[in-house]
């Protein structure tokens, strides 16, 4: 380039030369810009700390809740099992009236079949238990007097359980029925264990009866007993066996009745003798042996929940809908107003009252719940432009002249239809845990919002309001868990536990954000409920 000629160039070169060259020597912005920027950074930092604090608080609350639930569960597991729990797990215990019924049933049926053998069964506390199926078999036998059975009972006098086997065998053309299955349990742990002679005597009698070819239905019973422990013996058993053998050998119905009576008497005496022989710590305990029965499939209940409700709504609008009343500053002021609304938005008290119908799904632990809820939620915010969040798009200049923050309050009333799956034990009494998850559809009935000290800013939107910025119908997910208390012998239960709701849709009817970036309402709270009826009934 010739130094004598001034530099020349195209239009682009001219602007590039001047505008870029002068950048280095450009005038810095006014000092107020940094002050505003610094203030904004400080606010952003505070918001960051506030969010972190909120997360920490929630984490601590969740940890405490989890710890308390775990502690409660552990404490509950350390408690001795309740009678109903024993029933639920298939354990049956002594019930005097059932024992009487068992004794009475063969006696009533005695005239028809020849019957030998009855059982009397005694359990001592929870250590001496009988499988529940045994009771069922006994009741079935009582209902069918023509069928008798022979029971073999082996009593373990000190340690674990009593094992019973009942077997019925038809011999020949079905007229004669002989049952003789006895199990003698070999003693493995008791030096003083012994097998009573009846164990060998009765099979012999049964064989003889079967061999005689009696036309009368014949039932033979064989009882083998082994008593372990201190060598306690009963003197009644030999006589019982002899009576049975005599009755069978004589093939006489009347004598069979006598034999049964004698057997009942002697076994009752045996029970008394065993009772007397037991240490005081193992004295018989009478406990109720309830049976499980399916009752009506529906339960009904009420619930109340108190929670912290956060509408978490973002009223930022597309610039096209902003009011132009503020001139060229419309966008910045309305954006600032919307940001201020969100920054100051605080959760409020939410209350729900619900009515529920619960249906049992088979005999499983899952139940389907459906219900209606009425809710009232509140929230607060603060504004310096005298606006309510939903009025961002309609700001006028007069409303933007406030100099200080004013509290704004919101109240949302709604009705919801909810459906949930609930997991809980249907028969467990006392304390137990439950969990539930579901969805609810909410219709926003009424929204009332007002600015403190500015009554003209008050707004109320109803279902019929066409200008409502809120969705009339929203959906959300709900989950919860807690502790259920069901008292023994009552048809109601109480539930208490935390519950959380998460909105699927934003509260804002016309969000500018895409679906995944919308701000959705949520709430965390505690719910208490009362349920009437129980899906499985204990008799």
């Amino acid at each position, binding site marked *: 380039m010739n130094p004598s000629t001034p530099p020349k160039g195209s239009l682009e070169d001219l*602007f590039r030369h001047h505008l870029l060259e002068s950048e280095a020597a450009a005038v810095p912005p006014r000092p107020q810009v*940094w002050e505003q920027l610094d203030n904004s950074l400080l606010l952003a930092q505070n918001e960051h700390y506030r969010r972190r604090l909120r997360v920490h608080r929630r984490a601590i609350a969740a940890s405490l809740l989890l710890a308390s639930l775990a502690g409660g569960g552990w404490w509950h597991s350390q408690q001795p099992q309740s009678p109903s729990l024993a029933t639920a797990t298939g354990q049956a215990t002594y019930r005097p009236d059932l024992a009487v019924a068992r004794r009475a049933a063969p006696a009533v049926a005695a005239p028809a079949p020849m019957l030998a053998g009855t059982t009397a069964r005694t359990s001592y506390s929870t250590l001496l238990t009988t499988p529940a199926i045994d009771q069922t078999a006994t009741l079935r036998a009582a209902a069918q007097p023509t069928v008798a059975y022979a029971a073999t009972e082996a009593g373990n006098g000190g340690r674990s359980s009593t094992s019973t086997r009942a077997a019925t065998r038809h011999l020949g053309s079905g007229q004669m029925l002989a049952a003789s299955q006895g199990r003698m349990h070999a003693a493995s742990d008791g030096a003083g264990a012994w097998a009573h002679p009846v164990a060998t005597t009765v099979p012999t009698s049964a064989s003889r009866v079967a061999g005689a070819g009696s036309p009368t239905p014949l039932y033979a019973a064989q009882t083998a007993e082994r008593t372990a422990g201190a060598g306690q013996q009963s003197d009644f058993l030999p006589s019982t066996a002899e009576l049975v053998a005599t009755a069978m050998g004589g093939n006489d119905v009347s004598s069979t009745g006598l034999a049964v009576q004698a057997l009942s008497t002697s076994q009752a005496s045996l029970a008394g003798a065993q009772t007397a022989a037991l240490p005081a710590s193992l004295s018989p305990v009478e406990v109720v042996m309830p049976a499980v029965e399916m009752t009506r499939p529906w339960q009904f209940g009420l619930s109340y929940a108190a929670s912290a409700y956060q509408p978490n709504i973002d009223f930022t609008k597309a*610039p096209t809908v902003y009011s132009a009343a503020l001139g060229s500053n419309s966008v910045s002021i309305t954006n600032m107003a919307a940001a201020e609304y969100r920054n100051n938005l605080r959760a409020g008290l939410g209350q729900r009252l619900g009515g529920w119908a619960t249906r049992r799904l088979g005999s499983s632990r899952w139940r389907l719940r459906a219900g209606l809820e009425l809710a009232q939620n509140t929230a607060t915010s603060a504004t310096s432009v005298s606006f309510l969040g939903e009025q961002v798009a309609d700001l006028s200049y007069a409303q933007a002249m406030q100099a200080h923050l004013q509290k704004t309050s919101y109240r949302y009333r709604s009705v919801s239809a909810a459906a949930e799956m609930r997991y809980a034990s249907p028969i467990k009494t006392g304390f137990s845990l439950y969990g539930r998850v579901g969805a609810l559809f909410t219709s926003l009935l009424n929204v009332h919002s007002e600015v403190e000290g500015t009554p003209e800013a008050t707004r109320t939107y109803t279902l019929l309001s066409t200008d409502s910025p809120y969705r009339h119908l929203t959906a959300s997910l709900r989950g919860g868990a807690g502790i259920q208390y069901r008292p023994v012998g009552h048809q109601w239960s109480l539930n208490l536990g935390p519950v959380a709701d998460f909105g699927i849709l934003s509260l804002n009817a016309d969000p500018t954000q895409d679906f995944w970036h919308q701000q959705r309402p949520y709430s965390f709270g505690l719910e208490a409920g009362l349920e009437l009826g129980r899906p499985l009934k204990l008799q």
Partner: protein
Amino acid sequence: MSAAAWPAMAPGATNSASNSLTVSRSGTPTPPSEAELIDGCLLGRQLAQKQLYERYSARMMAVCLRYAQTTFEAEDILQEGFLTVFRTLASFRRECPLEFWIRRIMINAALRQHRRNAPLVAVSDGDYPETLASEEFTFSNYAYSELLNVVQELAPRYRLVFNLYAIEGYTHKEIGEMLEISEGTSKSQYSRARVVLQTKLARLQPPVK
């Protein structure tokens, strides 16, 4: 961004001796390096934030002025841009000069400002011829402030397209993607902006033949 834009990002932003954070062994205050400033900002240190702002604010203000119609609007863009810088500094991968990264953020802030304001601003082209013959301009005949005023007087969309194409070096395709317009529209608007600028420059100074 096109490589044509890189020469515009020439370093030389150490325009303030008062930016010192550290003191050398000889006792002379030395301005903090770019990496030190970034690290300080990432730690949330207010002093580092202020020094970073002071180092780049004047240069970025010049950028914002070209995209804005008024000084106030330019300051708004600058403030929004620096807020974004401090919030997203952790995502800066240090693969290019920090100034280039900040400049890009300022341009994006200007675009956002333009999107917000566009519906409210009526666009008037005025009375200008469709095309003008290409001509040469003597650089010394024009002052920076005159050229800046001419650019600021352009309609917002023309101003954007002209700045992005002529000054920053973006292609029409890139501009079309940024402004969500077609490449042809970008070319057309640039052509119109060019005519307007030529006409206005002609009114300022007679062209040198």
